[in-house]
């Protein structure tokens, strides 16, 4: 009896596994199928929208305008998703408190991409096929943006990218505009900072092995040779998998660099620096991207953060009154947490979106709105002065900060 039961159990398991396989096969097909149907339906949608908008103007007024915000609300990038949520909510609250835009209330819907390319594509399908969204803001990372962009491209929708800096995004997808410097702009400037501002010649780079990290590394290496520096070491680490940075640091330190440029999240960089406590790094300067401009970085890196240089576009102690006001209001929304550069760039992105909306008709179609936003030439926001080039890429002014006594201060070399 017992034996037979076990046998049946095995059979049942085999059947379940087979069913799961078949389902997964079908779902693979069907998700492709949805892509094509969405595309075709979107084509009709956009034509509907243009013809529909004419009829709407004669009838009722638009009461609500919806935007979709895609970011990593859960998972290993959730702290960035939080910045997205707080920054967009703050901007929208400010506008709605003043009575909205031409009488219409602005509404935001948040979508979670879990900082994962597959999820980003799924969520993009959902947003693109829902006609109520005028435009989309996000996703957060370059990898997620590259996954979502083709879907929004088909839908004729505007995709405003606050933080992803991979050059391919705006190059390949003409419906995108961004609010962060690309690696082509930023990384050579980091090289310039290392060589011309800080006066170092023997340079090493440690980068995260992903879309953004590789692009950063390539542009940085090109920048170093342009400004007359010497690359002594180039090392990669796998993000989210690497916890132990000692072997990488050992390898790089053996090449005797004067300055190490580290890319990645503040967690990666903070952990790496904290671990460097057991190595001899006194004579070496670390230069980090703006990702580490957050108190959490100081908390993780501890004493080892002392003397670290940071290139960033956003600086909370900026004397500009609008930055001070943003920081104050942001803390109210976030429950006391100071904004980081992502929050600032997202806030500016939302500001541009709403500014364009306020200048046109509320019955604007997705494609007309897209063209209007893409025509933005410049913006003076909380994350610095932005100017847009013909590729809809932004060029933002940057400053170099230094950690002194556990605080971020403007580096004397600026």
């Amino acid at each position: 009896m017992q034996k037979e039961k076990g046998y049946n159990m095995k059979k049942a398991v085999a059947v379940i596994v087979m069913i799961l396989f078949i389902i997964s096969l079908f779902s693979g097909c069907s998700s492709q199928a949805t892509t094509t149907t969405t595309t075709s339906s979107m084509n009709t949608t956009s034509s509907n929208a243009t013809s529909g908008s004419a009829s709407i103007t004669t009838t009722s007024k638009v009461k609500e305008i919806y935007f979709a915000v895609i970011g990593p609300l859960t998972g290993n990038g959730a702290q960035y998703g939080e910045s997205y949520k707080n920054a967009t909510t703050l901007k929208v609250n400010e506008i709605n408190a003043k009575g909205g835009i031409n009488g219409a209330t602005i509404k935001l819907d948040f979508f979670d991409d879990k900082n994962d390319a597959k999820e980003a594509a799924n969520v993009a399908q959902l947003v693109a096929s829902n006609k109520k969204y005028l435009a989309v803001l996000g996703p957060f990372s370059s990898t997620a943006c590259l996954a979502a962009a083709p879907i929004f491209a088909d839908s004729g929708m505007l995709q405003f990218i606050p933080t992803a800096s991979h050059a391919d995004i705006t190059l390949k997808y003409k419906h995108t505009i961004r609010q962060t410097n690309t690696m082509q702009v930023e990384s050579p400037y980091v090289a310039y900072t290392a060589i011309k501002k800080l006066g170092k010649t023997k340079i090493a780079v440690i980068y995260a092995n992903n879309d953004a990290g590789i692009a950063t590394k390539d542009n940085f290496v090109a920048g170093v040779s342009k400004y007359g520096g010497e690359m002594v070491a180039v090392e990669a680490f796998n993000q989210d998998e690497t916890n132990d940075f000692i072997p990488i640091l050992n390898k790089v330190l053996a090449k005797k660099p004067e300055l190490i440029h580290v890319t990645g999240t503040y967690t990666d960089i903070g952990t790496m620096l904290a671990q460097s406590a057991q190595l001899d790094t006194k004579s070496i300067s670390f230069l980090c991207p703006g990702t580490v401009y957050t108190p959490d970085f100081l908390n993780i890196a501890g004493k080892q953060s002392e003397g670290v240089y940071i290139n960033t576009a956003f600086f909370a102690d900026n004397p500009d009154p609008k930055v001070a006001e943003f920081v104050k209001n942001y803390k109210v929304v976030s429950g006391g947490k100071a904004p980081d550069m992502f929050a600032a760039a997202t806030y500016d992105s939302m500001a541009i979106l709403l500014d364009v909306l306020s200048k046109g008709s509320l019955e604007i179609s997705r494609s007309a709105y897209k063209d209007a936003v893409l025509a933005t030439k410049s913006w003076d926001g909380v994350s610095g002065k932005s100017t847009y080039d013909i590729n809809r890429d932004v060029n933002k002014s940057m400053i170099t900060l230094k950690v002194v006594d556990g605080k971020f201060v403007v580096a004397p070399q600026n």
Partner: protein
Amino acid sequence: MLVQQLINGISLGSIYALTAIGYSMVYGILELVNFSHGTILMVGAFLYYIFNIILGINGFLAFILSLLVTGMLGVIVEKLTLKPLRVHKLPKFTALICTIGISIFIQNAMMLIMGPQSRGYPMLFDNQMFTLGGVKISVMQLFITSTSIGLMVLLTLIIKKTKIGMAMRATAQNADAASTMGIPVNNIVSLVFFIGSTLAAVAGIFSCINFRKIDVYVGVTIGVKTFAATVLGGIGDLGGAVLGGLVIGIVETFTATYFGSGIRDMVAFIVLIIILVFKPTGLLGKAIQKKV
């Protein structure tokens, strides 16, 4: 450089070894791969953080407290979720799936409580470095490695020399027969979960001290690697677990130094596959005759 990396590898490997013992013990007694082990490890590491940083309890007291609480958590989880399955004599894979469920539940609960971000981890004491024949060793590395070795020896002695150890071995051989001989099988299983979870907490705290940060994902990476280490050494064998942990730790460190950090995990798993091809039961594992 070579000796330096060997020492780094051993200190990383002894953390893996501690975790691997937990996997191996549970498997040895219940023939169950406990996938919630990595999550328990994370909880143990977080408890130390909570006791020390948030509640401000002195380092060593917080350390002991978090070991005890984590051990109790292991016992409670076993009593609530695995024991009912065992009592109803449900197939082994039900329990296996159950441990995956436990792991997801605990991880998400922890994320709700502590949030997803990484935090800096408190050191147990000041990290001093000393040089021995040109090789830099930190006090922390020495402490981690010697505590790990000490615990392994202690555990082996308990299992081989004491009455409780004998009861454990009897339960491992045949739980039904052991229970007819008057061995309280349920208590023995609880004890095994207590010891396994305590070791996981030690490993979790040490690895977070080693990496100097903590987040709710710390158990995932360590869990996968130590599971590989357990299989590599021979699952169910404590010596094998230790050996497997050390092999994975050393291979990883050497790969990262001499070939590049991007392929460190790949090489560790290639070593696992090669060993399993030539010795399917693992380095020290014995072929088990299946009762048909």
